[in-house]
């Protein structure tokens, strides 16, 4: 348990420390160090869960099981690698004069604050605190989205703030309704928001209220997942904010929001006894997936394009969790992992590519393979991975999701395949000129650390070739928690 407390305390302390010390050249290193320590602590937590099973903290404030512990590790890992990337990247931004020292202090402090709120959201046992942490994550990132203070970035921050704020307000209403349902059957009122208590009492919760609550919760947290039609904040916040933010927004925040939705589904299913929650998730997921796949084609900004790809994949995962059953759930869990590793790696390379070209406009980024081969290859391989090329892990999880759909909803495989094809075409038609071709004048290599990218894409490749037994077992346990039965038996 103490390792978990450490996982939470380290980023919190990091946020305070980096806020106090201000921006100096070591601040980037401190950021990396704190993230590294957090990652180590999260690994220890995971090993503990693996050894003794689900953990409940003494005051029942925190609860860790196979489902959330792997997301904790993933969050800490991507937070760590992105911090490595962020140090030279943001130093370059300071050098270019886009940010000053005061804003760098804000940036570093909020980077840690953001990691803290996400880890808190993942590990808390209290559904109210889950909401508070999700709102906290929004608040921590608003000023980061407007970090460059251009009119565009201020506009993006405003829309992000308003849309996510209103969305999350719906989730809070859903939480209040759940609490209302819970406090009718649970004697100690302070327990009626605890996930462990509610989950036990789920079959006796009032179905009508819980169903209503789920609609609000899905809309609320769905806004943060980026589900269509509440997605419009996402491409804007991604394209206007600093690139390390895009990497952790896409790689982590969306996952955490989806985690919240799935947790709620686990409560709602036994209470309702029908597939209402699953069907709603399938509908929203499929819609987001298709809309995003088609929108990919019209993008002219490289970060916007990849953020639409994030919406597409979050839609696919939501759809997968909605389908339910062990196979689809296993696939969706795996997809959460490989998507967040791949997508954060892609945003890292996109950041470097934009520095090389000096712009984010796709038509002006050309011939990366000649200018800076490491960046070019990173973008090429990353995009191949995210488009679902074998042997990368995304292929495996998409294949699992497709076969699960084939089994329970055969006619839905058609739109899925169509969407995957359309998204593939959209990505590659933009990618091709960006990486191949001649080197335009005035594009020079930039200081880049491609190690995180190589590491993450390597992991994704490994997961595609062979899922290690330990990890498969881990996912399987999580699948049993969510779907009620396990895949591997």
């Amino acid at each position, binding site marked *: 348990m103490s390792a978990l407390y450490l996982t939470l305390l380290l980023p919190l302390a990091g946020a305070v420390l980096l806020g106090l010390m201000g921006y100096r050249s070591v601040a980037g290193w401190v950021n990396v160090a704190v993230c590294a320590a957090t990652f180590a602590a999260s690994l220890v937590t995971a090993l503990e869960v693996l050894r003794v099973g689900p953990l409940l903290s003494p005051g029942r404030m925190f609860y860790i099981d196979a489902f959330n512990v792997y997301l904790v590790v993933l969050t800490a890992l991507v937070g760590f690698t992105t911090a490595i990337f962020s140090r030279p990247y943001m130093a370059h931004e300071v050098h270019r004069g886009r940010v000053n020292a005061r804003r760098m202090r804000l940036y570093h402090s909020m980077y840690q604050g953001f990691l803290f709120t996400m880890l808190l959201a993942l590990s808390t046992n*209290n559904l*109210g*605190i889950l*909401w*508070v942490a999700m*709102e*906290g994550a929004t*608040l921590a990132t*608003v*000023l980061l989205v*407007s970090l460059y*203070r*251009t*009119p*565009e970035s*201020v*506009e*993006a*921050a*405003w*829309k992000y*703030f*308003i849309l996510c*704020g*209103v969305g999350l*307000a719906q989730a*809070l*209403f859903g939480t*209040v*309704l759940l*609490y*209302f349902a819970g*406090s*009718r059957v649970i004697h100690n*009122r*302070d327990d*009626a*928001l605890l996930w462990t208590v509610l989950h036990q009492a789920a079959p006796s919760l*009032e179905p*009508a*209220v819980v*169903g*209503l609550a789920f609609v609000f919760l899905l809309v609320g947290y769905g806004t943060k997942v980026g589900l269509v039609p509440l997605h419009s904040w996402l491409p*804007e916040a991604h*394209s*206007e904010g600093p690139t390390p933010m895009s990497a952790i927004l896409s790689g982590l925040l969306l996952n955490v929001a989806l985690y919240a939705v799935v947790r709620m589904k686990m409560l709602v299913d036994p209470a309702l006894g029908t597939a209402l929650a699953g069907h709603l998730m399938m509908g929203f997921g499929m819609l987001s997936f298709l809309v995003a796949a088609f*929108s990919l084609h*019209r993008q*002219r*900004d490289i970060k916007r394009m990849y953020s639409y790809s994030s919406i597409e994949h979050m839609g696919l995962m939501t759809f997968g969790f909605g389908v339910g059953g062990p196979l689809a759930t296993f696939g969706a869990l795996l997809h959460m992992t490989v998507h967040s590793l791949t997508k954060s790696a892609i945003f890292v390379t996109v950041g470097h590519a934009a520095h090389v070209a000096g712009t984010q406009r796709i038509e002006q980024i050309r011939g990366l393979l000649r200018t800076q081969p490491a960046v070019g290859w990173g973008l090429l391989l990353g995009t191949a991975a995210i488009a679902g090329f074998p042997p990368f892990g995304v292929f495996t999880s998409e294949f699992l999701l497709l076969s699960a759909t084939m089994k329970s909803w055969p006619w839905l495989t058609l739109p899925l395949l169509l969407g995957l094809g359309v998204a593939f075409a959209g990505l590659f038609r933009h990618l091709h000129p960006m990486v191949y071709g001649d080197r335009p004048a005035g594009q020079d290599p930039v200081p880049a650390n491609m190690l995180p990218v190589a590491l993450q894409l390597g992991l994704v490749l490994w997961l595609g070739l062979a899922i290690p037994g330990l990890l498969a077992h881990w996912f399987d346990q999580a699948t049993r928690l969510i779907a009620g039965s396990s895949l591997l038996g």
Partner: protein
Amino acid sequence: MTDLQGLDISQQLILLLAALVLFTSFAMLAQSRLINLVRVFAWQGVLLAATTALVAHVSGYSHLYISALLTFGLKALLIPWVLHRLVLRLGMEREVESEGNRTLVQLGGASLVIFSYYVALPVVRLSTLLTRNTIAVSLAVVLLGMLLMIARKEAVTQVVGFMSIENGLFFAAVVSTYGMPMVVELGIAFDVLVAAILFGVVFLQIRASIDTLDVDRLNRLSESEP
């Protein structure tokens, strides 16, 4: 159905307060001057704090007194005061918002209230006591807050709408379930406070970048770029 004679005086008072909270939401929709809007918002905060105190008295949950104080401090004094100062500082006290058909907006608000009663039906069926009407009222306050944000174009108005959504949620928590656990309420209060500060900061950024707070002018980002 509700038997009004069967309710004791404090429960009748809570119903009265619920009606007044709903009324302030409509009053906000009707206001065109920013300064008056902020005042009405402050009154909503006062009513909310009074309701919380009353519920604390009726239910005997003493932690609700703390929430009542927090609500009063935050939503009736601090946030309205900050907004008030911002409006004065940005020289917008005389500004009148010109926007579409005010009558239509009011009518839309009325339909939202009916819709809320319809949505809350399953909850009403189970309710003991007061919950029946108040959960519908709080949902209506939430939806009216959203309507205010949609119908207006001034950033300050949108913030007031946002905060009034929070008021509706808080009202739901207090009246239907006698408040959330303390730790959650403290967390929510903290979030609201941070959000209020952030709003102030983003206001200044918007003002600095487009020289007005009319968010309709925030239109540089669009799907179909040239």
